[in-house]
């Protein structure tokens, strides 16, 4: 039975931001530090970060057998090989399908579940939250056989749907916790004001709360996309048809038991990395805002 407890949330008090502390006398402020103190460590860090990427680019772009440290003469033969001969075009398409569908499903379900967790109170809520958190400690490999059996029963082995559902299931707990925290950060009084103006709960949520959740939704959606893009295990286990496999599985087949085509492997790695890099380049601003907003208030 559902009961209603009218616990009206008080309007959020207008916070007066305290003045930032002034730097103590004798201490040099960050903006007064010599530039080399900032750029030197950053430069060293960048070198360590970028060398592996350069190594991948080098192997992908230089001809097989070349030991040159610059990718010249440049060749696209490795890319052509993996894209056509090794079916990376198909794998890429499948990965995009799985990634986008997981993003949509995770975001929608996490939004609904997160809203319930943020706005409703019920007897097993704490236990439910604990269960959500505990589910993060269960490795996917442990659930492979039962999941496999369920999808086999549902005639879903060899269907991208099985991977999408499995990925969504494993993304949901964290996504729901994050979304519920974002929703808690939106003053309840805003929704109440919308109800007073004649909106029902869904419409109030859609026109008032949802626009304010943009950073959170982008964070959760991109996290779901990137995770499913990179995830290997479910695609390997649930998809048997070469035409259905995804990029991580294809990448894995570039290394055989006793032979490896490094040029093809590097080209495959770049193809796998590019969408993730592009996603992060476009959304990094919202991603940082989103995760920090979700992290502050529990």
């Amino acid at each position, binding site marked *: *039975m*559902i*009961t*209603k*407890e*009218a*616990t*009206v*949330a008080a309007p959020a008090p207008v916070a007066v931001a305290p003045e930032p502390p002034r730097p103590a006398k004798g201490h040099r402020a960050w903006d007064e530090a010599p530039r080399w103190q900032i750029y030197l460590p950053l430069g060293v860090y960048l070198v360590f970060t970028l060398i592996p990427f350069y190594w991948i680019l080098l192997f992908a772009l230089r001809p*097989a*057998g070349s*030991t040159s440290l610059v990718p010249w003469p440049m060749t696209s033969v490795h890319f052509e090989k993996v894209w056509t*001969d090794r079916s990376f075009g198909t794998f890429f398409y499948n990965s995009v399908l799985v990634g986008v569908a997981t993003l949509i499903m995770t975001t929608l*379900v996490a939004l*609904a*579940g997160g809203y*319930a967790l*943020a*706005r*409703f*109170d*019920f*007897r*097993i809520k704490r236990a*439910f939250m604990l269960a959500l958190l505990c*589910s993060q400690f*269960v490795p996917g490999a442990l*659930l*492979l*056989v*039962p*999941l*496999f*059996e*369920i999808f*086999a029963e549902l005639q879903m082995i060899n269907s991208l749907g099985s991977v999408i*559902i*499995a990925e969504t*299931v494993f993304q*949901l707990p964290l996504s*729901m916790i994050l979304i519920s925290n974002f929703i808690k950060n939106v003053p*309840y009084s805003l929704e109440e004001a919308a*109800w007073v103006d004649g909106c*029902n*709960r869904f419409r109030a949520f859609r026109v008032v709360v949802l626009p304010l959740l943009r950073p959170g939704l982008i964070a959760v959606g991109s996290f779901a996309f990137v995770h499913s893009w990179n995830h290997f295990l479910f695609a*390997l*286990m649930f998809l*048997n*048809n*070469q035409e259905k496999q995804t990029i991580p599985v294809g990448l*894995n*087949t*570039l*290394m*055989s*038991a*006793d*032979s*490896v085509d*490094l040029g093809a492997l590097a080209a495959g790695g770049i193809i796998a990395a590019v969408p993730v890099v592009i996603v992060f380049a476009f959304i990094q601003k919202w991603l940082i805002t989103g995760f920090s907003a979700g992290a502050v208030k529990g």
Partner: protein
Amino acid sequence: MKISILGNSTGRGRRTSAAVALGAVLALTATACGDDGGGAGEGGEGSGKGKIIFWDNNGGVRTEIWKEIIADFEKANPDIDVQYVGIASTEYQSKVDTAIQGGGLPDVGGISASMLAGFAAQGALDPLDDRLDGSSLNGKLNKDMIESLRAAGGGDDKLYSIPTSANNGVLYYRTDLFEKAGLEEPTTWPRFFEAAEELTDKGANKFGYTIRGGAGSIAQALDAMYGQSGITSFWDSTGKKTTVNDPKNVKALEKYAALFKKVTPAADLNNDFTKMVAQWDSGEIGMLNHNLGSYQDHVKALGADKFRGIPQPVGPDGKRVQVSNPVDGVGLFKSSKNKEAAWKFIEFATSAESSSKFNESAGQVPAHLDAAKAEWIAKAEPTKLAADALTDGSTTIVQLPYYLPDWNTISKAENEPNFQKVLLGDMSAKDFLNGLAEQLNEAQAEWDEQMG
């Protein structure tokens, strides 16, 4: 369930939406749980027509050649459709194990000696002795390879995999560097150690040898040990105690492990075959131990004229001793509902023509006797030398116990970290080999007990 709504609430619709939202989440989460269920059930002979599924245990690099063989097969058998699934070798065992437990096994799969015991013990494979007896393949396949697969099957003396090829350990060395240094080819162990030292110039980043310290290190260390010690059997005369910790093997391992950092890069501690082959192909390292499988990679990287691939050096009495490499083959899964068609495919895939095509591409020794006489073998020097070594009596092969269900665990996860300790000097070769011997003797005793 009692649900209270935080803040003002205006009715049943909101409660319903909350219940639906949570219900949807629980329903999705619930799909992550389920009962354990049926494994690989019995299949049937089928009509000999229709679709069969083939899982390749080393997918990727060999995908093209398998697709070619499948196209030939479908042309010869237009009423059978073969669906090829290439699976990376590192993931093959876990994928098959999952399918054995959860269902969904293919009709035919690549089954090498190293995986055979586990699959056979789970009852997933169909014995092939009777089918082979009635086949045109009978008498045409290398007997040693058949026996190797029969022995690896788990002790019931049945054949679960028809051999396609054998691999063999190869010592690759850079002919250009040897010539420049005026060194003789490393056909004996003293020459090998001498060349490793002579070719090392750490200041110039030149090394005589690259050692395998990461994944797969144990088999390579065993090869170096038995090769030097000349011991020809993995078990003593009682068959209950392993010879790995024989004093001769201990001494041989001490000498081999002492190469680390003295004549090898320090990064070799984590060398798996990929890193080891990559650095040999792109640097100035004199020698590398690997198998026939990487020959084509070396040709692409260095050109065929800059290196040679020869069998392991001979021991002190002029005899060569090597440890066995897993024989590869194809097997028929018990759950197949179209075994007649599946067997037709296995026969075709292991026939002289297909075996020749496949092994020319893989650079390995064909199991089919007629394929082993093909012209290409004479042109692929390491394959020819390996084939000769395996058949001309010059080499004694120490058979590793692939039949032990624990072999993969003992020779990999449980002892590779200890071998790294030996390389770093944190553990003596004697302690390492005594520990390894204890585990192997225990596993053998368990196996003997199970076999009655």
